[in-house]
């Protein structure tokens, strides 16, 4: 090409508070977008799970059935099912429309920290403090897991699923990637207890935050470190980290009440979004738009790239 490519438009960051949702369900342990980003799911410490409209912030449904606080939630690709995990050692598969428990799976020996559907929602994967990841079949009526991954030497703190890979972060300071297609297990030693792991959107890199207040971007295939992001505070909490919708920024919660945005390539701090005074417990990035959910104490905040009124005008 004769001309250099035009400089791509600077990515917009979700820095405007659109609304605050008071969840009325105790502390919000986790907040998640659903698969298409139109709905918000909040896990409460009062054993309930709530479904909200992301655009209006209204409560749509409350799911009760857990025996203790709900720790993580994931929605299936078709929004028909939800899976949650809880401190009561169970994993529950919900029917979204009716709010009924489709399946309640017991087997973990300790509280279950994280849960994920696979791409087709045929398998639920749950990682527990007991150091195992259990693969539950949603198709059959079996109450036993398909497979138990017990290679971790300490509790599982975070887990993500891609097409054919499982990314599992454990408190033993290792990020394990199970490659189903290759039949291999790759163990990356980080050293400090892992709090959250993510795939990048192009699924070539893995992002892992650990309790040494550092977020690391590792090359998936070789395990080399591509970037290191620090400045935030993460010493004791299981805080979330994620990548922005176009993989341009790395985001992480912080115990000082901010959400940190780093430029992925430069590694420099782009934005320090003040959320509140307490610990930002959980965050979730919209799958396609620059929109962010943060959870602090009992409420959830929705952040957008533009102020609300402007967005409304656009839509009109």
């Amino acid at each position, binding site marked *: 090409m004769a001309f250099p490519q035009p400089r791509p438009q600077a990515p917009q960051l979700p820095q405007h508070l659109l609304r605050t949702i008071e969840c009325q369900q105790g502390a919000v342990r986790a907040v998640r977008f659903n698969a298409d980003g139109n709905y918000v799911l909040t896990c409460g410490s009062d054993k309930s799970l709530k479904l909200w409209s992301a655009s209006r912030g209204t409560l749509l449904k409350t799911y009760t059935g857990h025996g203790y606080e709900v720790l993580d939630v994931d929605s299936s690709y078709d929004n028909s099912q939800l899976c949650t995990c809880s401190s009561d050692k169970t994993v529950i598969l919900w029917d979204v429309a009716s709010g009924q428990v489709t399946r309640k799976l017991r087997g973990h020996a300790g509280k279950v920290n994280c849960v994920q559907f696979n791409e087709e929602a045929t398998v639920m994967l749950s990682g527990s403090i007991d150091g195992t990841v259990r693969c539950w079949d949603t198709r059959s009526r079996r109450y036993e897991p398909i497979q138990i991954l017990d290679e971790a030497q300490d509790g599982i703190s975070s887990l993500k699923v891609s097409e054919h890979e499982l990314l599992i972060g454990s408190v033993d300071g290792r990020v394990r990637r199970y490659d189903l297609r290759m*039949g291999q297990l790759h163990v990356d030693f980080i050293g400090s207890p892992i709090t959250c792991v993510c795939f990048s959107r192009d699924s070539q890199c893995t992002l892992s935050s650990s309790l040494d207040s550092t977020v690391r971007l590792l090359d998936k295939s070789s395990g080399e470190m591509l970037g290191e992001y620090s400045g935030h505070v993460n010493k004791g909490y299981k805080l979330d980290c994620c990548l922005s919708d176009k993989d341009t920024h790395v985001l992480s919660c912080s115990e000082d009440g901010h959400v940190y945005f780093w430029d992925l390539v430069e590694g420099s701090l782009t934005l320090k979004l003040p959320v509140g005074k307490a610990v930002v417990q959980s965050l979730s990035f919209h799958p396609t738009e620059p929109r962010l959910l943060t959870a602090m104490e009992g409420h959830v905040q929705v952040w957008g790239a533009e102020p609300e009124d402007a967005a409304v005008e656009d839509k009109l």
Partner: protein
Amino acid sequence: MASDEDSDEDFVTYGTPLEPLEEDEPVRKPVPVHEQTVKDEKGRYKRFHGAFTGGFSAGYFNTVGSQEGWTPSTFVSSRQQKAEKPNVRPEDFMDEEDFSEHGIAPREIVTTDDFASGKKDQLKDKAKAVSSLAALIPGDTGLLEELIAPARSSIGVELLRKMGWKDGQGVGPRLKRKQRKQNDDAVKVYGCAFPPNGSEESEDDDEFAPENVSFAPKDVVPVDFTPKVDSHGLGYRGLNPLQALGGGSETGHINLFTLQSDRTTSLFGDRNSGQQRRGGIGGQAFGVGAMEEEDTDIYHKDSMSNYDNVLGGEEPGDGLYGWTAPQQDKNDGFESLVRSHCRSSSFSSFINLFVYPPPDLPRDYRPVHYFRPVVDSSTVSPIVAQALQASRGHLSQDAPQQGRHSLDSSQRCDMLGETPLQGPSSVFELLGSKDRERLNEIRRAATEQNKSALSSRFQSIAPQPDSHTQSQTSPTKSQASSETQMALKAWSGPTADASKTFKPFAENPQKQARYDLYINKLKQGNKDALESSLDSSMTEWERGRERDEFVRAALLYKPSNSSLSSRFTRSKHEDDTDSVEVTRDQENDVDDKQAAVKMKMFGKLTRETFEWHPDKLLCKRFNVPDPYPGSSTVGMPKVKRDKYSVFNFLTITDSSQVSRVAPSAPKPPSSSSTLPHLTPEVSNKKSRWDIPGQEPKDPLSAFLSETRSEVLAAKNQTDSPHAIATPEVPLKKQKKKDKEKHKAKKHKKEKKKKKNKKHKHKGKQKKRVEESNSSSDDTDSNSEDENRVVSTSELLQRSELIF
């Protein structure tokens, strides 16, 4: 009849006859007292549980239940069969012993009430008996009845009879003088009493009473203490409909105001009824009956003094004493005492009798009790404690010893005053002084080794590549020699014989024989025991391995003191347990990785790849072909390993040996990153690689193997069909090139790479694949040795890069 010998059968025999003595039978020795045991009907020893009858011998040998145990009755109820309400009697909870003669509820033949002649009233019986004596025909009342009716006299009566007591007599010592006759004949007078008739007394005195005759005491009719259940006034009896309507045969007049005395007298067959009625209440309130003879002034005033104010009334003056009545009868017994008081004094004085003066109170008595707080002497100041002690007398002494659980056995022993147990308190006391010294030495040596190994480890990452071999081999060599020295020290000397010692290589008899030889030589103090006992026909590598194993085994299974070893029994099922399941691929040393993380050298040093088998169903659910078709293993492949293999003990003594021995291990370390269909090839190479003469304990070997495996993996992946899908190889190549160029900082390069990745161009990827193909060709053409050389050089470059 008695003289008739033939009619023996006619004799009535009581009891069990003794066995007829036979003449030639030896005289039986009497059973001594201490051998005489009481057994119950079941032949078990009888235990006495309480007084006389033994109380309860509860259940089955003092347990609940039976020989089979206790089975509770289960509650079953259905719609068709409703559960019956169990009517539980006390007998259900009793044992058969309780029903026996001396049990608490003896079951014997008893006349039931149906066959008893009417209700037997004890009082009535007594009265009847007394009255029968005075009757014209003695015992005319119910004499016939008594003949028919079964006698039911209590055991007390039986005993009294045996002692010479007769019915109707009083109980007590016989008296010299006949009891003074009372005015028994006197008519009961209401209103003004007549003065006592003096003629009566004279009559009594005149009665014949010989001096030398003693009399039985006059019998006393017990007072009928029937409780008052009605709400009538004292002494008032309501209309008895039976008497009023049915017509009492004897009493034409219904007397509502019969007193206690009257009632008692009526028991005696109304002998004096006419007399009494005449002197009784004239019925001022009820008029004069037609049958009444005396209709003296019917309007006379009644006074309360005419009435008895005590229950029980006057003793019937029936004059039944006969010639046995004692004179002092009036004054014995509480009853008469009370009565006398009643007569002599007013009612109030009778009450006053029982009022006692209040007790004398001590001078310092305070009517409120005050609980003093218990104060721990350790928590308060000594002055306060002293003051408290003075005020109270004692301080809580047991405060400082916090509960009995915090005491140890010896303390408790002291408190209880027990003599301490004899014998050693610790296992180490069983060891001889020599052994103890040896143990300490070993401990000291181990700590020193740890230190040296640690320091050497961190030197191993030092910049000078030439010093690697020297710095690492010298401590290991010296360490090995020190171990052999230790083994020698442990085994030389008069210790347990070989037969008693543990056989770690029992599976391989030849190896065990060699080991035994080695141990024997050690015992003789042979310095080169190890070398001489090894098989010279083996390869150097094998010998090296065995040398290691033997030394370690000798150290681990040191001969213990015979006194100690005799205390432990060897388990019999060794065959089952001498192999353990271990995941085949063990993780490498963590310390190396930690160091790598510190230097931010993520990548090869922190990455480990293992073979992992997903479940078939999981692959199906993920829409992924099974990577290991035909393999039945799930998860990490496991291998059975000899429990007593050296490699399981490696971590016991020193973790630094992991890196030293790992490359020479039978498990293929290189296989960790390769695909399964390559593994046989790899294992072949491993043996080839261990060429005798080469120093296999090179610290570099870990790195060598790693890099070698890397190359192998690269080669393999280019061969495998998945190669296109995984961009590992081209990236690596690129990285290598980058490193060779030493152009820019590492981070920048990575970022660039990342950028490249983000904008994936198909053409570029194709190029990479081609590149990787060519590189794989290169590696293929290289021989194995060259491979190693290349990798070492790369490693050296890398280390240069770091520092």
